Each structure stands twice: as structure tokens, then as C-alpha cells.
């Protein structure tokens, strides 16, 4: 009896000691806490949305088919997969979504990768300018490029609207596949996400060991073979990372396909939501399943990356390919020309739009008469409906816009601080204990929300937090929670990559000297990797500032700037939306400049530093 109680006490002591030992390591405490919190924030919304697919919604198809106004049923699944409308409601949008996501990946990798190669591995002219201007499409809300696309290429003859700039000025009518549907959608999204590829692939090009290529050159290997067998395999992990980031984002994009007339799962979700609420939730689940599949692919690619450990960053010798005196300038000119249309022209166009008398009315260009311009969109100080103001005050006096701006700043700063801090801690903790199953779980669960399409995440949180116990609809709290969860991966990836570059010896020596954990972090680890860590704060901030798909179902118009901007764009009040775009761009540039000045980090240094 005594022995067995001693035995029990012994087991208890051992267990207690094990727990104490486990918890004595700060990274274990972080992993434990984050694992619990992130499990809830990731899995609970998924459960909520799954429940919604079985729920009967009054006034919708499930209520009609079941003859009930409440309760649960599988009728939504039955109807979505087997009804005569399965093709138009499910399969066609699904196929379009996959095409869009794949096409966007290709465009962004090709465009971003080539520019990254030219910037980092060649003696291209005007690198600094091109590098800075290249990230502009990512700064701007993605659909603004779609609107610019319409203003440029629409024509009476082809799209059945008024003429865009190209048709008006030069009489050029672009074909319909160029103006609407899949092609413009994937180009616009590809341009928007090309900076991802640029940052990721450029990071590897910048740090890669040139000795391998040089050895191949010495062995007289043809250039194409060096590219195919050495250079490309080296950047393969970066390409995979870009696919990871871009595929899910493109898949969940609502505004671009919406404006350019492509039916995807996201646009279908919105159009079905009124009458087919439960079935729309199934579409969101399908998008989520893609997110999970991408995560599993990522796990596989992580395993295969073991064979690419040549990317060490140890070589200081990077051989630059000479493009020739003329070549370096011609290629640079081509890039300057291209980036003019992706980065400068939209901003100029936004600027002009705020002075046009009617949306898209470029009379002053055709007539040369500058009296066809107006300042009414900026300076109207009274609430009128005449002259196209639709009861809105000018931008300078428009309370809706400035309140939304304040709201956006609040959400962006809060998300940036929370996601940045949590992500940095997760990255640090994961780097310390990579082989542990729990660690891998925390790492995956922190990354999963990013891989899930934004609109699906928004839907899930809308359902989770719109109930009689917790109702956070249209509150900043909800937006901050969702934004934080969604953007933790920016910081966790950035932090993990940089922490892995740090030798454990540095922290171990501090431990030997009994330096407390907080001090080790703030005095040693963070300062060494500050550039990457700051980008982990900066990216959530910037992304939050112009995020729409994630937030559009969680708040009303006027709550934040992106929903306000979308509202004005949909209403055709492009002067207001353009003005908001300018406000957003200037804000991001100011913040980027401040951070760059204070810390040396900047956006184009990006993920993983």
C-alpha cells in the first residue's frame, strides 16, 4: 500500500518535473500558449462554417426544399452537387477559380522572377528605381488595377460601354478576351502579386552561392544548362513559396474577377449568398479545402527542400551577368515602360480622376479645354445631390472617408503589432524545436489561415462571431482578430527564416551568462534580425490597409477605407475611390519611409529579409 502510494507519488513527481522542465524553456511556453490560441482561432471558424452548411436559413433554398424555417439538413449539399444548376453554381466557378489561381501564379512568378533575376544577378541600369517602383501594385488595392484596366481598354464596339482611353485617343479596340474575363483577371492579379515573387526569388538570388555556377562555367557547361540545372533548382524553394502565397490569395480574391466579369468561387459565393446561403458556405469550404491541400503540398516541398541546402548565404561572391552597355539600358527602359503602366499610370490616373466632371469623362483631353476639369470632388463642403455628388461632400470634408481612414489605421496598426509580435514569437519558438510534433502543428496551424482564401476566412468569422452570445459584427475588435490571425504567417515565416540563420550558440552563451529571456530577445536576437522582423510587422500593416475580401463581410461600408473605396467604385464614383487610393498610397509610402529611416528595413526587402 505504502509502496504503491510512493510509486504514485514518484510518477507524479516525475511528471511534475517533466512539465516544469518543459515549461522552463520560454519557447515551449510560447508553443503551448500559441498552439491553444491558434487552434481556437483557426479551427473554430471552420467548424462554424461547416455547421452553417447544414443549417436551414429562413427565406432561402434550404427552407424551400425542406419546408422548414429552422433546423438542420443535408439538403444544401444535395442541391449544390446534384441539381441542374451544379454546373453554373459549382463546377464552372471552380474551374475558373483554378485557372485564375494557376494563371496568377505563372504571371507573378515569371514577371517577378525575371525582374528579380535582372535586379540581383545582372548589371541592369536604374536598379534602385525599378526595385522601388516594382512593389507599387502590391501597395494598391488589387481591384484598382482592374478599374484602371477597364478605363484603358473598354470600348463601345467590344465591351458595349463608353470608350476607354485607348479607344478614345487612338481608336484601338482591344479584343473581348483582353477586356473581360480570365485573361485580364489573371494579369491584374499576377501583377499585384508579382512583388511576392520578386521579394522571395530575389532574396535567394541575392544570397545564393555563385561558386556552383562558376564551377559549371569553368567546366564549360552551356549557359542554358547552368540555368536549368543549377540556377533554377536553387530558386525552386522560392518559387514554391510564391505559389503557396499567391495561389490561395488569388483563389480568394473577390474584387478583381468581380470587376472584370469572371465567375469564380468568390464571386459566386457573394451572388448565391442571398438565396442559397448554405450552399454558398459549401463553396467557402471548398476554397478552404484548397488551402489545406496547399498546406500539405508545402509540407512535402519542405521535405524536398533538404536537397537545396546550397542556399546558405555564406558566399559573398555573386557574379553579375553583363548585359552589355546598350543591353543594360534597353532592358531597363523596357522595365521602366512596363512599371510605368503598372505603377505610375494608375496613380496619375487616380489623380486625374479626382478632377473629372463625370466619372471617366476625359473631355479635357479630347478638346484641350481645361475648363472641363473640376475641383468639386475635393472641395464641395455641403451635402448636395446635384452635379454628380450623390449627397456626398468633397473628399476634404467627407466625414465618411476620414472616419474610415481612422478606422483603417486603427485596424492596421493593431493587426500589425499583434500579428508581428505573435508571428515573431512563433517563428522563434518553432526554430528552437523544429523536430517536435507539437511544434510542427503550431507552425502549420499558424500558417493555415494565410493559405485559406480571404473571403472564406471572412465568411467563417462572420458566422462564428454573429450569434446571440458573441456578436462582434461591425466592430474593430472582429476586424483586428481576423486580420491578426490571417497575417501572423507574414511575421512567423519571416521570423522563422531569419531565426534559422541564427546559430544557437549566440543565445546559449547568453544563457550561460544567466541573461534573462526577455533581455536575450530584446538585446541580442531581435537586433540581429531586425530587418526581417520589422518586415513581419510592415507587411501585415500594409496588407491590412487595403484588404477587402477578408473584411467585406465583417463590417459595413464606411467602417474602413477599403470597403468605402469598393462602395464608391461600385457606385461608379471613381473620383472618390481614386482619392481614397491616393490617400492609401501616400499613407503606405510615408510609413515605409519612416520605418526605413528609423530601422533600415523596407518593404522591397520583404519576407525573409
Amino acid at each position: 500500500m505504502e509502496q504503491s502510494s510512493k510509486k504514485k507519488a514518484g510518477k507524479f513527481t516525475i511528471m511534475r518535473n517533466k512539465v516544469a522542465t518543459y515549461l522552463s524553456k520560454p519557447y515551449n511556453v510560447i508553443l503551448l500558449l500559441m498552439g491553444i490560441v491558434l487552434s481556437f482561432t483557426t479551427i473554430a471558424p471552420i467548424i462554424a462554417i461547416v455547421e452553417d452548411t447544414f443549417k436551414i436559413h429562413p427565406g432561402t433554398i434550404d427552407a424551400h426544399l425542406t419546408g422548414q424555417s429552422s433546423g438542420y439538413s443535408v439538403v444544401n449539399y444535395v442541391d449544390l452537387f446534384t441539381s441542374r444548376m451544379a454546373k453554373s453554381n459549382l463546377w464552372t466557378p471552380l474551374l475558373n477559380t483554378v485557372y485564375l489561381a494557376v494563371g496568377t501564379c505563372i504571371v507573378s512568378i515569371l514577371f517577378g522572377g525575371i525582374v528579380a533575376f535582372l535586379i540581383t544577378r545582372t548589371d541592369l541600369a536604374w536598379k534602385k528605381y525599378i526595385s522601388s517602383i516594382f512593389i507599387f501594385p502590391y501597395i494598391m488595392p488589387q481591384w484598382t488595377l482592374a478599374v484602371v484596366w477597364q478605363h484603358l481598354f473598354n470600348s463601345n464596339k467590344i465591351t458595349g460601354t463608353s470608350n476607354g482611353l485607348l479607344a478614345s485617343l487612338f481608336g484601338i479596340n482591344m479584343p473581348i478576351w483582353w477586356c473581360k474575363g480570365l485573361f485580364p483577371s489573371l494579369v491584374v492579379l499576377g501583377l499585384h502579386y508579382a512583388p511576392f515573387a520578386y521579394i522571395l526569388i530575389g532574396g535567394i538570388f541575392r544570397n545564393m552561392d555563385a561558386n556552383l555556377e562558376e564551377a559549371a562555367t569553368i567546366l564549360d557547361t552551356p549557359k542554358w544548362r547552368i540555368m536549368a540545372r543549377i540556377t533554377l533548382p536553387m530558386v525552386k524553394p522560392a518559387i514554391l513559396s510564391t505559389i503557396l502565397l499567391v495561389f490561395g490569395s488569388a483563389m480568394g480574391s473577390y474584387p478583381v474577377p468581380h470587376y472584370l466579369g469572371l465567375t469564380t468561387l468568390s464571386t459566386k459565393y457573394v451572388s448565391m449568398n442571398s438565396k442559397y446561403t448554405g450552399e454558398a458556405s459549401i463553396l467557402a469550404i471548398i476554397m478552404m479545402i484548397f488551402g489545406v491541400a496547399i498546406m500539405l503540398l508545402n509540407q512535402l516541398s519542405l521535405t524536398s527542400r533538404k536537397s537545396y541546402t546550397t542556399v546558405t548565404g555564406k558566399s559573398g561572391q555573386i557574379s553579375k551577368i553583363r548585359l552589355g552597355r546598350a543591353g543594360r539600358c534597353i532592358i531597363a527602359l523596357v522595365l521602366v515602360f512596363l512599371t510605368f503602366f503598372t505603377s505610375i499610370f494608375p496613380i496619375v490616373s487616380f489623380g486625374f480622376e479626382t478632377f473629372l466632371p463625370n466619372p471617366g469623362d476625359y473631355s479635357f483631353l479630347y478638346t484641350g479645354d481645361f475648363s472641363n476639369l473640376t475641383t468639386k470632388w475635393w472641395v464641395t463642403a455641403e451635402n448636395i445631390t446635384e452635379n454628380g455628388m450623390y449627397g456626398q461632400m468633397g473628399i476634404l470634408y467627407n466625414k465618411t472617408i476620414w472616419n474610415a481612414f481612422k478606422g483603417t489605421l486603427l485596424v492596421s496598426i493593431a493587426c500589425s503589432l499583434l500579428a508581428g509580435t505573435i508571428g515573431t514569437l512563433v517563428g522563434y519558438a518553432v526554430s528552437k524545436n523544429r523536430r517536435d510534433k507539437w511544434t510542427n502543428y503550431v507552425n502549420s496551424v499558424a500558417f493555415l489561415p494565410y493559405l485559406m482564401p480571404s473571403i472564406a476566412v471572412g465568411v467563417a468569422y462572420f458566422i462564428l462571431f454573429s450569434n446571440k452570445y458573441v456578436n462582434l459584427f461591425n466592430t474593430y475588435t472582429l476586424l483586428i482578430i481576423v486580420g491578426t490571425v490571417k497575417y501572423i504567417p507574414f511575421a512567423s515565416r519571416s521570423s522563422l527564416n531569419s531565426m534559422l540563420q541564427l546559430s544557437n550558440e549566440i543565445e546559449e552563451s547568453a544563457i550561460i551568462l544567466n541573461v534573462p529571456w526577455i533581455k536575450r530577445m530584446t538585446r541580442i536576437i531581435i537586433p540581429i534580425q531586425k530587418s526581417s522582423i520589422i518586415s513581419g510587422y510592415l507587411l501585415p500593416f500594409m496588407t491590412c490597409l487595403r484588404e477587402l475580401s477578408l473584411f467585406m463581410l465583417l463590417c459595413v461600408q464606411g467602417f474602413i477605407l477599403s470597403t468605402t473605396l469598393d462602395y464608391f467604385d461600385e457606385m461608379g464614383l471613381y473620383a472618390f475611390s481614386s482619392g481614397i487610393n491616393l490617400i492609401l498610397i501616400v499613407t503606405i509610402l510615408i510609413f515605409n519611409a519612416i520605418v526605413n529611416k528609423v530601422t533600415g528595413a523596407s518593404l522591397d526587402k520583404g519576407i525573409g529579409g
Partner: protein
Amino acid sequence: MKKLLALLLTSSMLVSLAACGGGGAAQGGSTAQPAGSTAQTAETTEPAGTDTKVDEANLTATQKIIQEAQGMSLEELAAKAIEESNGKMFYGVGNSSRGKSALPLFISYLQTIDPSYTMEFEWQQPKNNKIFDQLTADSLKDTGTFAMTLIQDGNQIQSKMVQPGILDTFIPKDWAEANGTTPDAYKGYLPLQTLNKVFEYNNTGSKTYDNVWDFVAEGEHGLFMDIDSEIVGKNFLYMLTRDDYAAWMKEAFEALSDDEKAYFQPVITEMETDAADLMLGPDAAYSLAWIKLWVESYNAQTDDGPICSTLVDASATDQFGLLVYSKLRSVEESATVSVNNINVAAYDDGYEGIGGYGYCHYLFVTDNSPLPWTACAFIAYMTCTADGFSAWGKDMGGYSSNPKVLAENEEIYHHMTGGMAEDGTTVQFAAKNDRGYEWWTTDGKLVLEDPEYCASVAFTVGSWIEMLTKYSAE
């Protein structure tokens, strides 16, 4: 995690399998609808959702206030509103952005009674049918954010808002009297106004549209808000299948030339079986044919604003659209943009067929309204005074449901001569001479939304429409 995911995937697959043996369609949805949609003649028929008399003991707090408020004049309501909301914040949500213009006028009105009165306000106008999600989400709070709403689409209002008890109807005493009834006798929703969407075409070319069938002729692609994003557009299509409107479609068809008839006839013949299957009236094949051709040809746009901006541009030669008439008011004349670049089809001599469609903006108090008295007073102010209605009354194409306000509004704004030059005799902008509600609902052949009919065909004609392949310019 993996297990959970596996479980989710498995259950999805099981459900798909279950689909093979599932799903007998049952009747459901709403069966009856309110009468308020035909606002100009206040009906007293029993509306859906009120066919069982509400037990007074079961009234919610807001419903009790409404009951009391329905016996009060505007002045009495104003006093209650001042008491309730002085210094507070008022949130409203609506399908019309003009609520934002009406609220300051309402505050000014209250300040004429109590100069110290102040109220902050915010007015939201959601897009993409989100208003129903917003109100549903807000209804789950004990005390909601929104005090009231101005909402369209009687079909969804009935099934998603009124039946679940999210919105309550308040009938102002003065409004009821103006319509020759009483709040108790009137059983419909309270319409603020009827709006019209009309066919307009760019006239800078030589093309004319003198028959509603011209809009669905070969190669035509009218600009129209997508029916999935603005459901009243879908309601318009439902309404076309009602016997009286189907007869109009047939009448217009018969006015076509033989060549034109020969083009449309095969589609009409093809639709006869569908019309029978959908248990529609004898002329419904004409409507179904027009709907089919329309859905398969219209060029979907995000809003009426961009449609208007497009059509008034000189470069939009021969394009046409079906859009809110009042948008014309916001056009600023410039070198290439002019209201004179468009014609309102129904105003053309010899035009045959429907001129467009009309739908209502209804007013409701939210059942968890944080400021129910103020909401009632605001609703009474908008429906019973020309000042209150002026946010909408300034524009052509919006007709007050209160006959007194409608007449007073015309006295003030002269919409019927809104396109005349300052001399009062020269026609400056013909399209802006609004011929008024009376004309539109008779000679103009406006198709008026009837929520009851829409609800009755939402899952028959509605599903049939959804099966059609929408036009895509891709």
C-alpha cells in the same frame, strides 16, 4: 488536426453520396406578401406575416412603442424623439444613400421644436444584398446598432426580415389618413416611395428602340445591374410572368413587323412548354421568351451609376440600359457628356411595350432598435412632410407613397418640367421632363413589383431564370 480535416472531408463525401437518395422538394418559403408595394393606393388586404393576429401580451418592447406611436401625430412623435435621442448617436441602414441627406433635415426639424437638440448620425448603404446579412447579424444583439432601415425587395423582406421578427412595421397616423385609411386598417409594409428603372438609349447614332422587344433583338446587350447583385431586377423578371404584364409583352410583340416577329417566334414557341410547366398564364410564353433573351444578352454592371455615366457619354453610340431614372440628375454637362445624348425609350412617340419597372423602398423599425421613438418620428417625418421627403423628392423618378407629399413635392420641384430651360418654354433636356407616377403606371407601362407575386414564383420562375446562361462578354 489531420484527423479533424479527415473527418470534415469524409463527412463532405458522405453528404455528396447522400445526395443520390435525397431531396424530395417540399413546398415552403413564403406564401403571401404585403400590400404596401402599390403605394399610391394604400391597400388594406391582409399581408403575409400578419395573418395571425399578434397577441398583445407577446408584443416586444419596440412593437409596444410602435403601437403607441401609431396613434400619435408627427409633433407628438417629435417630442418623444427629442426626449429619447438628444445628444445620442443614430445609426440607419438602407438601400438608398439619401437617408444620409434626410437625417440632417430631420434633426433641423426637431431643432425647430427644441433648439438645444443635437443628434449624431451615421447612414450606411450596403451593396450586394448585404443589408439582409447586416440586419440579421445586428438583430442578434439585445440592443441593435441600427435604429431603423429603408429597404427594398419585398420578397426577401418578408421571408428573411419580417417573419423572423427582425423588422417591425410602423404606420404613421398622418400617412394613413392621407391615404384614406388608418394604421390599424392598413396591413401592408410602409413604402416611402416607388422608384422607376427605365429603358434609356444613347441617341448619338441612328439606332432607335421603338418596341420593348428591340432590347432583346439579335446583337443587343443592354447595360443592367446584375440580377444577383440587385435582386429587385430579378423581381422585375418575375413580375413579367404575371398575367397582366405577360399580356403587355404579347401586345408589344404583335406590334412588331413580320420580319421581327419571325425572329422571336421560335423562342416564344419553345417557351410554351416551360410556361405550362411553371403553371403560368396563357401569354406567359411571351414573357419567358423576353426574359430568356434578356438574361442571355444583358451586359452586367456593378451599379446604375456607371451605366448612366456610360450612356450619357457621346462615345456610347447605340448602347442602351435599364437603370434608375433619377441618375440623370447627377450628370454634369461637358464637351462629351450630356443628358441630351440619351432618350428615354417610353417617351418616344410610337414606343410599344413596357417602359421599365418600379419597386418600393420600405421603411421599418428594427425590433431591437436602440432609439425606437426617434426611428418612428424619422419615418413619420419622411413619409408625411415634403421636407422629409425632399432628399428623394428633389429627383425625378422617385414618387412618394403619400399622395399629399407627392403633390406638394411636384409643386416645389416641378419635375414634370425639370428639363425645360430657364425661360420655361424651351425644352433643354427632354429626358429630364419626368412625366410622373400617374403617367408611368399607365401610358408608360411601368411593371410594378408585387412582393406577394414575387414570393410565389421565386422558386419556380426564379429557378428557371437561374438555369439560363447569362451573357458573358468573355
